């Protein structure tokens, strides 16, 4: 099932590992196939109470009044939790690492900013009773105009979504409204280019849809602490967030979890724990707060939508000489983790390609949509979708094979990245070569010989060629204007207004010395051998 291509970069590895490369069983697989893995909801408590949440039906509205008197009188209702009951009713997840300002209430008191925002909780003897009681709560709203589009949200006079960030953009380092990347001279790059390809890409929000919905159970312990069984993907992160919101010490909470019924990023937001802990403290009883499927799909935070504009300048010979990106990350009504997604997005531009002139602006934008969160490479995934679509369009524009086009532009060791870091341990060329081989996609010999190593154009002892049939003749996208696929050395500057050439130092080959601590030396563990 798993194929490790140890022939590639074989000379850079001490192939002495006992576990890596060997199939191994999951440590939790026996529990999974016997139905005995302890998911959070597989713990049973006598007299368990149930918390359910009243959610806003409006995307943006002022709350005029809340009347929960009828609900409070219903049999089985043990406690109503209002915004005023939450000890610290404003938080932002990344405040734990001093990143961003508190901007999101656990329960909204004055304004709701997205459809589904929590307003009030009811603790009852069963989920059924709690839901029936929620239906008896009367909330009077003044609907407000809402904004759902990232570019609309940035216009002059747009509706202000988030009171903490009235301009609808996250604030970096206390003053910047977006992340910037500048490298080389973008105007000169476009002027130099033979062709310009420009397009707009839109990624939708995506729900993680784990088969186990978000949830947690808080149980008062005998020593005054609370034991919390939770579906969270981020146990200690959730613990600290819950402690902050409940104004507790971390050591008053004992979190038990780790068996997660699918997360994919949708269980890092600490969506249930703070309120279920509060409910357990207010009632003195064990309380469960479990998302229903509708709650999970509609209000569980999704992958954020992204809108990305890409403009590329390319030479007839296939070299990309300029790349400009303008990207808007839809954070929804609150920050959660989107501020970080934007940093990741900016760090990933211009993709794994050596481009001398790069210019990017990436915005974290607030709208009246469900707050977004982590999901499998968020910030990077949508950008890659845009960039790789763009790579295909560029290849077509210059009449090149799309894989050869990527190999030509791929990072090689020693290249200078747009972030002014030297590219090291590159492997895209080899990945592209193997992918082409697996797909029986013919590459011309010069591309099959290219390598990610410094210099890159020279065959590397036939490593990637081994055991391969001669390449079939290409029925080719022929490009008469093409002269050579060899890239000019990075030190020979492009024609007009070149960026400063990256330093090209060639360090002596490292000596494979024994390690000071006596353990077997392995390049992946003890640092890079390839420079």
């Amino acid at each position, binding site marked *: *099932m798993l194929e490790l291509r140890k022939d590639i970069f074989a000379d850079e590895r001490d192939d002495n590992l006992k576990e890596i490369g060997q199939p191994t*069983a*999951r440590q*939790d*697989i*026996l*529990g*999974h*196939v*016997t*139905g*005995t*893995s302890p*998911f959070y*909801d*597989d713990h*049973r408590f006598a007299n368990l109470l149930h918390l359910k949440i009243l959610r806003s039906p409006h995307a943006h509205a002022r709350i005029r009044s809340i009347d929960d008197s009828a609900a409070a009188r219903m049999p089985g209702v043990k406690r109503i939790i209002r915004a005023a009951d939450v000890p610290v009713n404003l938080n932002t997840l990344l405040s734990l690492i001093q990143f961003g300002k508190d901007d999101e209430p656990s329960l909204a008191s004055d304004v709701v900013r997205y459809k589904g925002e929590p307003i009030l909780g009811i603790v009852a003897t069963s989920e059924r009773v709690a839901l029936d009681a929620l239906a008896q709560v009367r909330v009077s709203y003044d609907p407000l105009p809402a904004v759902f589009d990232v570019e609309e949200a940035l216009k002059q006079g747009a509706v202000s979504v988030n009171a903490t960030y009235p301009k609808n953009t996250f604030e970096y380092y206390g003053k910047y409204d977006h992340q910037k990347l500048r490298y080389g001279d973008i105007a000169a790059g476009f002027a130099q280019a033979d062709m310009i390809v420009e397009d707009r890409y839109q990624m939708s929000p995506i729900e*993680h*849809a*784990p*088969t*186990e*919905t978000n949830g947690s159970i808080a149980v008062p312990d005998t020593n005054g602490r609370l034991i919390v069984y939770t579906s969270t993907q981020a146990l200690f992160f959730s613990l600290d967030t819950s402690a902050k919101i409940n104004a507790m010490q971390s050591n008053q909470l004992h979190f038990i979890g780790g*068996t*997660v*019924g*699918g*997360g*994919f990023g949708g269980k890092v937001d600490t969506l249930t724990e703070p309120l279920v802990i509060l409910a357990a403290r207010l009632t003195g009883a064990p309380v469960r707060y479990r998302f*229903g*499927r509708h709650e999970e799909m509609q209000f569980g935070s999704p992958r954020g939508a992204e809108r990305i504009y890409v403009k590329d300048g390319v030479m007839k010979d296939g070299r990309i000489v300029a790349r400009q990106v303008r990207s808007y990350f839809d954070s929804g009504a609150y920050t959660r983790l989107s501020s970080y997604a934007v940093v990741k997005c900016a760090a990933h531009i211009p993709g794994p390609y050596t481009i001398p002139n790069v210019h990017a602006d990436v915005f974290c934008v607030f709208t009246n949509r469900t707050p977004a969160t982590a999901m499998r490479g968020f910030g990077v995934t949508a950008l890659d979708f845009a960039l790789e679509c763009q790579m295909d369009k560029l290849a077509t524009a210059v009449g090149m094979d799309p894989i050869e086009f990527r190999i030509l532009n791929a990072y090689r060791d020693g290249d200078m990245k747009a972030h002014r870091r030297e590219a090291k341990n590159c492997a895209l060329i080899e990945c592209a070569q193997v992918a082409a081989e697996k797909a029986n996609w013919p590459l011309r010999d010069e591309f099959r010989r290219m390598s990610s190593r410094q210099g890159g154009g020279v065959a590397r002892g036939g490593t990637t060629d081994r055991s391969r049939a001669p390449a079939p003749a290409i029925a080719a996208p022929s490009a008469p204007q093409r002269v050579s696929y060899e890239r000019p050395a990075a030190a020979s500057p492009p024609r007009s207004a070149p960026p400063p050439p990256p330093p090209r130092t060639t360090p002596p080959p490292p000596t494979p010395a024994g390690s000071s601590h006596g353990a077997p030396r392995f390049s992946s563990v003890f640092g890079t051998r390839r420079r």
Partner: protein
Amino acid sequence: MKTPIQFRLNGEDVATFAESGTNLLDVLRESVGDLSVKGGCWQGTCGTCTVLIDGAPRVSCVTLAESCAGRSIETTAGLRRGADLHPLQTAFMENFAAQCGYCTPGMLMAAKALLDRNPSPTREEVVDAIGGNICRCTGYEPIIQAVLTAARGDDRRRA
């Protein structure tokens, strides 16, 4: 109002009380204590809570508990015989057919229903049999392979 219900669960007689209108999933988990059955959507769409009722796969979250009186119900908790795993369990382990493990009990029961009536299914028949069960982790391929492996009996059955 609570009514008494009696049925067979994994070969043992079970008697309990259930609120009128309660679904089988809640009765199995909350009243009987069989936690091998998991709830995923509570609306009959994801297959996570699949159990066998008289040999047929059924989504327990939309099955009225009262309708199960006198029936025979099988769940993942009853798959193994003492220390010996069912061939499907072994095949799931060896084929890496579970990641988070939450859909696995339902998946196993859907597969068991297939193999019980068709010991040598084709790949298409396996795909059809688990077609009502959602897995968000594996991409299904290892699960299909596991069911085919169990059917071929090349998992060195220990039972």
